[in-house]
């Protein structure tokens, strides 16, 4: 298979397949969760579920001072890595074009060299988190194969993307194809691993906040 054929394969049928698995998978997972049901509380309400739910959905992104003090490393690295990931995925013009093709929406991007630098920063943050995961007793105990796997499938698109951008020693088509393939790996892994937190997090925060809201906890 030539590099061009490889690129065509990943841009064509494989991308469609990955999209189907991603979209279908996410909805299956959401349905799976929602169908588990939740009993409505019979206790007299002191506040509204919605107010607490929405509040926690937003407020939980900002840690309190003590938590920041205690888990500062996790929080800073986590923030850098998540913001970096967001910038790289959604503000790189070639990526925006993918969304434009898929959903018809477009938005302005950032200069490519800023994306390039962000990729490196993001990878460094991810690396520090990986090292922390291996070195810290709590993280090491909690982590299983899945945690390392999702780290890898998240890091791979960044690494391959970096090389595709700089085309070091390999053909542009091949590296681009490998990059897209790594993204497809991420897409199909996404719904069925803890990467799903990207969407279940909103449900979790809602459920947690709804209880607080109902009890009038502020």
């Amino acid at each position, binding site marked *: 298979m030539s590099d061009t054929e490889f690129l065509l394969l990943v841009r064509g049928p494989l991308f469609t397949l990955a999209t189907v698995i991603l979209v279908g998978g996410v909805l299956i997972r959401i349905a799976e969760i929602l169908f588990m049901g939740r009993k409505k509380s019979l206790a007299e309400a002191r506040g509204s579920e919605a107010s607490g739910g929405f509040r926690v959905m937003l407020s939980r992104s900002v840690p309190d001072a003590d938590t920041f003090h205690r888990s500062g490393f996790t929080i800073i690295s986590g923030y850098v890595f998540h913001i970096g990931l967001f910038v790289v995925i959604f503000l790189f013009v070639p990526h925006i074009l993918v969304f434009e093709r898929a959903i018809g929406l477009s938005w302005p991007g950032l200069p490519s060299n800023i994306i390039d630098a962000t990729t490196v920063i993001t990878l460094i943050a991810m690396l520090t988190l990986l090292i922390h995961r291996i070195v810290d007793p709590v993280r090491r105990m909690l982590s*299983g194969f899945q945690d390392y796997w999702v780290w890898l499938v998240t890091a791979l698109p960044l690494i391959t993307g970096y090389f595709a951008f700089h085309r070091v020693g390999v053909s542009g088509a091949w590296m681009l194809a490998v990059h897209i393939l790594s993204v497809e790996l991420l897409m199909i892994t996404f719904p069925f691993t803890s990467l799903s937190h990207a969407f279940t997090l909103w449900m979790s925060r809602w459920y947690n906040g709804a209880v607080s809201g109902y009890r009038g906890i502020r």
Partner: protein
Amino acid sequence: MSSEGLQRGYAILKEQIDAPTASYLSSCVNCGMCAEACLFFTETGDPRYTPIHKVEPLKKVWRHEYTFWGRLSKALGLSKPVTDEELAAWSPLVYDGCSMCGRCSVVCPVGNDITYMIRKVREGLAAAGHAPEGLVAATRRAITVGSPMGVKLPALQAQIRHVEQDTGLSVPVDVENADYMLLLSSMEIMNFPEFIAAVTRIFDRTEVSWTISSEAFEATNSGIQIGVSDLAAELVQRVVTAAEKLNVKYVISPECGHAYMAIRWEGPNLIGRPYGFRVVHILELLDELREQGRLKLQGKETDRLTYHDPCQIGRRGGILEQPRNLLRAISDDLVELPGGGMMNWCCGAGGGVSSNERADEIRLRAFNRKKSQLDQIQVDGLVSACSNCRIHIEEGLEHNHIDLPVLSLTELIEKHLAD
């Protein structure tokens, strides 16, 4: 025998899993931040006390029973189910090393209510026969005698007589159509009868129509702590029956954390119907009376005071402002504990830890957190609103040779009643 227990526990765990649980378990990325929010971890450094780790048995059941891949791999015999040994191994983690304080639940960045899940794990472990002896015994006393400490009606009656002698007021018992029915925790009856006296004086002065039921005066609920909803429901039902029989408008939850959680938030769900009365916490009522101008206070405390929020009343119960309003009315020198309010650190004895002798050692280690906090703010007195917190803090202070008065907020308020 143990396989029968395992089956029972497993079946219970299966019942426990709902949409929030599934969402929480799907969201966790093992970031480990909950460990740093948990005093059993910070004071021991033992990673096994990481809150989300305590949920592991529930997570396994969820994967096995309620995820597509889990059911598939179970059908193919690829995954191992939870074993009885595993459940037994988790007992010290969820009973001794967790006070259900809920601090992890407000720190978790993905928003997981981990405490909510640990509560469910306890259901499974208890049904499987892995609850600690002390809690089982307390629960047995609660069900059979009516109180986890074995306090019977004559004991209460004796205390009431003392109170009536001290105050010169009468304590209403079994008065039908009273507005309020007061519940008491065994500890208040046995250790802090001053509380009953304080309430009697305050209600007399504020002209609150109230009563105590001779049939259901116990506020605590061991069923909640051990995690057996069937038994917890039975204990709640006793209160509900008594309150509805006396036809009261309100039931007052006293200075006890989990008692408030049990009667206010879990109760109706345990018995499966809303109450015919409302539930208020004593602090809610006092602050309301103060606001209405019925509770008039005079004089200020000269000591520098702080307030320790009982977890179930504050962070998980929503009563955070009222105690501060009351304290500000009688003190100009009130300092907050670091994180006071929503992020307050637990004393270390809640959630049944204090009834569990197995946890005596770790309980005192966990107290180091409160001790170092107290070292930081240097106060003359600590006020709280939970007998269990008070007893444990007193014990912890004594253990560390610290002389610091630990006060009941209600009792303190009573001292400032205007003439």
